[in-house]
Each structure stands twice: as C-alpha cells, then as structure tokens.
C-alpha cells in the first residue's frame, strides 16, 4: 500500500498532544490522541465538558498547533506547511460548521455558500448552480436569498453545512452543530449532514455533547481528560451506547 500517492485516510493524527500553560501547572488538553478517518466516514467526537474535544477539533482544523504529534491531511504533514499554506489548506481542503455565528450576516444564504467558492476563485456558473441545488436539497430552496437574520437556527446550520461541502473538501469538521437546536431539528440536521458526507465521500468529524446524535455516525470516539478512552465502531454498539445514555 502506497500512503504517498493514495492515502487511505483523509485525516490521520499520530500521538497529538496539546499543553496549555497555566498558573497551576500545565494543562494537558489533548494527551496523545491518534485517530484516522477515511473518506466517506462520519465520526463523532464525544466526551464530557473539558475533555479536550474543541481543542482537538481546532488542531484538526489547522487552527491550533499541537505541542507534539503529527497530523496528515490527504497524506500531507501539516507541520511542514507555512502559516499561509495553512490558510490555503483550510480554504481548499476543509469544510467547517461552527456552534454559533456560522454565517456572514450581511450575505444571503446562497451568498454564504458561494463565498466558499469565491474564496477559492471557483465561482462559475456551474458552482452557482451547485450551491442552489445543495441548498434546495437541504430544504432551503425557498430561502436562498434570505439574510442570516431571517433564518431559524436550524436553517442557519443547514446553510453552514452547504458551505462546508460546496467546495468538495477532503475533511468536514462540525463543532456542536446541534447546540442551539431543538431535538427534532437536531435529528434532521445531523441526518442530512450524514447523508451528504456519505454520498460525497468526505471524511466527517462532528464534536457533540449530545449522544443521541451519534445515531447517524459510523464511529464514535470518546474522550476524557484529553485522551481517547473508548471507541464504538459498529452500528449495534453505537445504538446500544446511545440508548443506554438516553435512558439514564
């Protein structure tokens, strides 16, 4: 197998460590995390508050440099890239949805999605059409020209999902996409998200504290105190974990 030309994993980390200095000694926010995600695989990163999920996501997003360890995106070692290259990497290879303030408020839904193509200098007729089709698939066909303020939280998250996918990134990162949604909408959003990730063969990683959302993912990685402590790799064990928690 040739990892150089045809990496098996869209994203791979090797023993990533992130240490924050503090007055009470160093905090190991991420403590030796190794993970791999294949194209077309949707993974949930779960764990209690303070377990290091957001820190790990920031490192995967090339927004934060790890204290130690390596990250490969499409086989490229991020450590070897300059600050400018990392900006380009985020723009071309990564799609994002954030917990809040996802969208540019002075752009319409479709303009927000097109922005990703614009930034990559790839906004052509075909791109514009794809942006509209994608939004329509996410149930926003009637909302294309609405400003962010005129959309509900769920609609905003769906626009963000479209923006995260429109430029065909290798990796899609979602930070608590359901945090501001009611249960029914949360299910809808994550289900659509999972569908698109599978269909378009992206590697998806979603940070969530809502274990019920794991119903739609292929694998669950559980963190505690900066470490990966448990992994659920098959649908049956995931569903068991979800039900077990939901019944608590």
């Amino acid at each position, binding site marked *: 197998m040739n990892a150089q030309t045809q990496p098996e994993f869209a994203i791979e980390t090797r023993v990533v460590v992130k240490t924050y200095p503090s007055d009470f000694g160093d905090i190991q926010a991420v403590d030796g995390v190794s993970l791999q995600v294949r194209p077309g695989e949707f993974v949930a990163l779960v764990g209690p508050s303070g377990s290091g999920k*957001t*820190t790990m*996501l*920031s490192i995967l*997003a090339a*927004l*934060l440099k790890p204290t130690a360890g390596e990250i490969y995106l499409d086989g490229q070692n991020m450590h070897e890239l300059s600050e*400018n290259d990392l*900006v*380009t*990497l*985020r*723009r*071309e290879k*990564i799609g*994002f949805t*954030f*917990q*809040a*303030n*996802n*969208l*540019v*408020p*002075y*752009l319409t839904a479709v*303009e927000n999605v097109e*922005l*990703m193509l*614009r*930034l*990559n*200098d790839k906004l052509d007729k075909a791109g514009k059409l794809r942006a509209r089709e994608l939004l329509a698939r996410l149930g926003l066909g009637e909302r294309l020209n609405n*400003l962010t303020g005129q959309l509900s939280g769920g609609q905003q998250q769906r626009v963000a999902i479209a*923006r995260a996918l429109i430029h065909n990134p290798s990796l899609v990162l979602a*930070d608590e996409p359901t945090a501001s949604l009611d249960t029914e909408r949360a299910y809808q959003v994550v289900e659509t998200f999972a569908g698109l990730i599978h269909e378009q063969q992206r590697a998806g990683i979603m940070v969530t504290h809502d274990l019920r959302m794991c119903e739609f993912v292929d694998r669950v990685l559980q963190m505690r105190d900066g470490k990966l402590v448990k992994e659920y790799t098959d649908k049956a064990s995931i569903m068991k974990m979800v039900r077990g928690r939901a019944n608590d």
Partner: protein
Amino acid sequence: MKQVMEISAFLAFKEIWRNRGRFLLVALVIALITLLVLFIAALGEGLGNGNREYLSKLDAQLIAFQSKSDYLIGASRLDRDRLASIARVQGVADAGMLGASSANLILPGQEEPLKVALLGVEPGHAGEPPVVQGRQLGTKLSNEVIIDRNTALRSGLALGDTLEMRVTQGTRDEYYKLRVVGISGGQQYSLQPSIFVPFFTWDKVRPKSEAEINSSDPIANIILIKLDDPAQADVVRQRILSQVNNIEVATISETIQALPGYSAQQSTLNTQGGFTLFIGLLVIGGFFQIQILQKVAQIGVLKAIGTTNKVVAATFIIQIFMITVIGVLIGSLLTFLFSLTFPPTIPIVFNGTTSAIAIVALLLIGPLGGLVSIRYAVRIEPLKALGLSS
C-alpha cells in the same frame, strides 16, 4: 491581487449595502465635519483676505518702512525725500507712497456711516489699484476717488457720484466731498472696504492730530517698490538698505504676516480646522472600532474558512474609504449649497487651493482613523470561530 480586490470589494459593498442606514449615518457625520472644516477654511480665507487683499494684489514686490517700525504700516512714517532716494536705486522700476488711514462715508438715507480704509496713492504709480470701471485717478491733487468693489456694493455709490466723507482733524469733524471716477476690484484693507485718493489729497483729507494739522510736509506711511526683475528682490533689497538711511524693507508676504492680528487670527482658525479634523478622526476611528468589536466572531469565522488577512484588511480599507468619500462628497455639496445663500458682505471666501487641501485632509482622516481597527481586525484569531483563544 486582483482576486483579493474582487473578494474584498464584494464583501465591503455587501456589508455597506445591507447596513446602509448605519453607514449612511456615519457618512452624514463626516459630511457635517466636512461642512464645518470647509467653512472654517473659507472663513480663514475670507478674514485673511479682508486683511491682506489690497497688499496681496499689489503690483509691487518690496515695501519700505521707517526703521524700527517692525513692518507695521501704522507705525511707519516716511517723507518724500525717501521716495526719491529709493526710486533712484538700480533695479527699482517704480516707487509710490502709500498713506493709510480710515474714514466714515456719509451715505444718504442711511443712519450709520460706512467705515472704510482711506488710502492715499500716487496716480500712475505702484499702489494705485487698476479700475475695472471708469478711469484711473487724474492729477496729483484732484478731488477724485477710486472706490473698491466692496465699497460700491455696500454704499450703492456709482461712477460719477459724489461721495461725502467725515474725518476727525484735531478736535473737529471735517466733511469732504470727492467724485467717484473709478471702481476697482475688491481691495479690502484692515477688514474694511477701501477708497483711494491721490496722495496729496489724502494728506489733506485724512484724520489728523492737532499737531499734524499745522505741519506742511506731507508724510506717508510706507513706500511701495516695484522691481525691474522680481527675482532680484533680495539683491535690490540689500542695495536699497545700503543706499537709503533709516528705513527697513520687507517683502509683501512679510508685511502681510506682520499685519496686526493677521497671524494670530489665521493660526486660531487653522487650529480650529485642525481640531475639527481631529474630531472627525476620532468619530471615524471610534465607529469602526466599535463595529469591529462587534464582529470579532464573524471575522474569526471568515478567517477560519480560509479568508486571508489581506482580504480582511482590504475589505476594511475599502469600506472606510467609501464612507469617507461619500461623506466628504455630501459635505462639499452641502457647503456649496449653503455658500450660495451668503450675502457678499460676509467674509467667507471659497478658495480652490484651501478647499482642496481641506478635502484631501478630510479624505485622509478616514483611513487614519480606521488604522487602529484594521490592525485589530488583522490580529483577530480564527480560533475565535470556535469560541477558543490560544
């Protein structure tokens, strides 16, 4: 680079357009500041002009004063012997005496007399203003007068009219009548409209102290010197100083700077203008800084999804520039409309150069005021998008 500008312009326009109320408000504040700055500049120009107009329009390059008079026209006394000596100096094309005083014009049908500058000049020599209507002064001792445009406007006097003038000589009020033979362009002196009479007539009709009434020798204040070659001013100045006793020689601009109150007034108005610009700087700086504080998360998201700092900075610069330009345009237009409503007697003069300098300064305060915000925007970390900071 082209792509940076395209994206920045797109983001800048969209944001301004979708928040046009807010941006328009700031543009209006800039417009008001523009109005204020342009008016202060025009007032400075108008007042300065009212002080120096006659001097700055002179067809002469040097002015001779009595020595130790500190270039003050009112403090200088020169007699005709000096005129002859100066006229003989090589490089001097022409020299004329100037006597400066003031008088009250008695206007039929008006209670208040019109205070004017009464200037004695030598017909046909440096100091006599060119007329735009009628003719120049005739003989040396005629009872003729040239009035400037401002006097004509305020008094209603026309060519051929007889002007009546009241002056105090010793302890008595004397009345003199002079015939208006010419009207010159604006020639204000000491913030007053001016009238010009032949020098010897001036010496007869000017306000005098008791002592002066009995002296027969006509005394002027200063002597205006026109040179063969204005570029030789320094050389000729030295030559005059070495050949004529008890005088000092100034250029026109030195004389203007020494006019009583002139420099103080100009610097006061310049300070006011500068201060207004500074307030504008703070307003624009404050507005964009507040804006950016509200947009930290938003800018963080833009950077997280791969927007470069160049684009973020360029977007701000375009916005600041647009708002400033729109504000200055509106302000200039308002200033123009207002200026149409002013009567000519108000000392407000829109001078092209002064207004241009003010407008350039106004256009610069936007980018300057926004500098801090741009720096701040560039420094926002994309991690803010995740609610984290490093």
